[in-house]
């Protein structure tokens, strides 16, 4: 079986080093030594924007053998649909894994946008369906529905989206959506449905996943815990009638030696201010995944070594940048060995990331992926 390796497009700026917490790439930080601030030359607009830097990251990823990249969506990020449509014209093979919450688009519009983007990109759209973390962020987005409602809506959304696309004229009268004889025009309807990556651990989420998802996507968690979760997901979705694959989203710090890799962590940790540790403590959401990781004691750690969870796994990444706590740190050989280990535990696909995303796409693509068990690597040529 082949393994897909995706990269990540940082949709809210990037940093030139994991040692620094600031987004000094992108237009989020002012013009200053070390800041890229695209779009400003001599203090005035120069006609470029952060989109152009994201285009270079996507090109670096496709040059380095990644099949595509995840485009995350949060309140302060740029929008994955807009980025993907623009970068469809700037890339050749890169697949766009678009993070989106079904509640934000009508299913008929989502079908039209997706099919049009399939046409613009020659079939390179992948979904990362997110059902939403709840709480104030959900209401910021203008979404008033609660947890179980949202999974019901995700299921119904995907029913309608697929129905209109592949079984039109399609009529549906449900709890959340009503459509009468909806269909895509022939040129759009002939496009393939995107592969679906899906997140969520609750029973409601798994029922929805079993109906529609191709991949169950998780952050990196302690390996044993993750293996158990993958087993449960595969077993439960099989009971519900669908074979589902599993994917892991994980940040890596890979260097020629262990010492060099951990030195990045040591310096990054040293740059973390007490204020951001406390901020981490307050940032606990109501999702199960976030609560699990909060138990690691990140906010209390006074030494970077306190956060080593297992060989080559460090639990303090959330101090260095927003996002999941666990990541893989080590020599090229050891990072590859940990990824091989995760494949052995049931991973079928990875979304990797490293800072800075542009140069590190080359490093990881050239130095780490070739060391993986040879059968595991799906090369671009093989995919074609």
């Amino acid at each position, binding site marked *: 079986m082949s393994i897909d390796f995706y990269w990540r497009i940082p949709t809210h700026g990037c940093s030139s080093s994991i040692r620094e917490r600031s987004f000094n790439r992108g237009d989020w930080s002012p013009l200053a030594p070390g800041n890229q601030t695209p779009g400003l030359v001599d203090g005035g607009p120069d006609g470029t924007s952060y989109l152009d830097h994201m285009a270079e990251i996507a090109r670096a990823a496709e040059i380095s053998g990644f099949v595509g990249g995840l485009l995350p969506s949060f309140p302060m990020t*740029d929008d994955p649909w807009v980025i993907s*449509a623009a970068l469809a014209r700037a890339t050749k093979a890169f697949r766009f894994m678009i993070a989106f919450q079904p509640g934000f688009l*009508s299913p008929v519009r989502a079908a039209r*946008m997706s099919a049009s983007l399939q*046409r613009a990109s020659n079939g390179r759209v992948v979904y990362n369906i997110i059902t939403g973390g709840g709480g*104030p962020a959900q209401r*910021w*987005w*203008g979404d008033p529905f609660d947890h179980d409602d949202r999974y019901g809506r995700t299921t119904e959304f995907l029913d309608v989206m697929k129905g209109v696309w592949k079984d039109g004229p399609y009529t549906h009268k449900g709890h959340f959506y009503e459509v009468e004889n909806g269909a895509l025009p022939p040129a759009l309807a002939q496009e393939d449905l995107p592969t679906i990556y899906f997140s969520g651990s609750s029973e409601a989420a798994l029922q929805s996943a079993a109906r529609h998802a191709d991949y169950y996507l998780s952050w990196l968690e302690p390996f044993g815990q993750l293996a158990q979760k993958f087993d449960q997901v595969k077993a439960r979705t099989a009971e519900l009638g669908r074979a589902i694959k599993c994917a892991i989203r994980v940040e890596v710090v890979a260097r020629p030696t262990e010492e060099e890799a951990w030195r990045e962590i040591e310096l990054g940790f040293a740059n973390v201010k007490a204020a951001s540790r406390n901020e981490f403590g307050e940032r606990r959401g109501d999702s199960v995944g976030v609560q699990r990781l909060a138990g690691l004691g990140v906010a209390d750690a006074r030494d970077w070594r306190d956060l080593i969870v297992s060989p080559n796994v460090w639990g303090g990444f959330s101090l260095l940048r927003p996002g999941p706590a666990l990541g893989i740190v080590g020599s090229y050989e050891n990072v590859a060995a940990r990824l091989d280990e995760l494949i052995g535990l049931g991973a079928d696909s990875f979304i990797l990331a490293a800072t800075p995303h542009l140069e590190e796409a080359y490093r990881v693509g050239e130095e780490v992926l070739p060391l993986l068990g040879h059968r595991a690597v799906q090369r671009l040529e093989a995919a074609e």
Partner: protein
Amino acid sequence: MALRFYWHLSSTAAADRRRAEWGDGDRPWVPARDAGSRRLQINHYDYLTQVARAAELTGFDGIVIPDEPEGEEPWIVTGTLLRETRRVQLVTAVAPGSASGVYHAKMAASVQRFSGDRQGWLIDPRQGPEAGDAIDEAEVPARTGELLTLLDGVWGDGPFDQEGRHFVVEKGGFGDLVRGRRRPPVWLRASQAPDADLLAHAEVLLLDTGLSIEALGDFVSGARDAYPDLRIAARIPLLARAEAADVAVERGRTAPSADTLVGTYDDVAATLADLERAGLDIAVLSATNQIHEVHVAGEQVIGRVRAAAIAA
């Protein structure tokens, strides 16, 4: 301000529809669908972006990207043009029932950030039940009003709250994402008879009622007088040729509709100058066989109107 020219970028016109499309071997001039190498193949967006670039290169000020049920989705078309055009305004058709209000505004924030504030919104207020938009006719203006209020509200630091019948937001606001960015100017369609509350949100009123070209001048001057703070735009299908004999041939071949501006280059340039004097700010020109006609319009018609304005 001088008369501005926009091109109506259709993705459904018969003459254009199949350009750069996949074929099944039925047409020798297009690539056959080849799954093995399709990622490296051209597609219809190569054609659409070429029309848009041609408009930019021939002096158009903007592109209107309509929402045609049989065509491409306008937000995706807009996205593909962000790095393919440098100067032209991109007026995207926006259907209030197709996404949450915040999501519409969020997509616009990225378009403005990436395009240097070139996006406008053309409101298509109702799509109908086949698009999953089964709203009561009577509710349509209120929903559009809620969307435009929301757009203003989240386009800044907030906190913005809205408890509408169609859109809700709690402690909203985009902050740094839109700092220094222009909220997309809003175009409303005259055919939808927008009321004063809606017009208060708008920058442009688009005359799109398909009035005959003879009647358009009066309509323009009436709108100009009624809405002194708005810019007045008109959708004008164009059939322009060099000589009267060429016009006659083309007229016989295509049977242009009554709202089409037909004539020699000099005729149509003169009519457009008349419309400008009546108060028209923006001419949204359209024709099928777009890659040909956008050059005719840009080089021959816009060129004449601008040269005459400079000479005067």
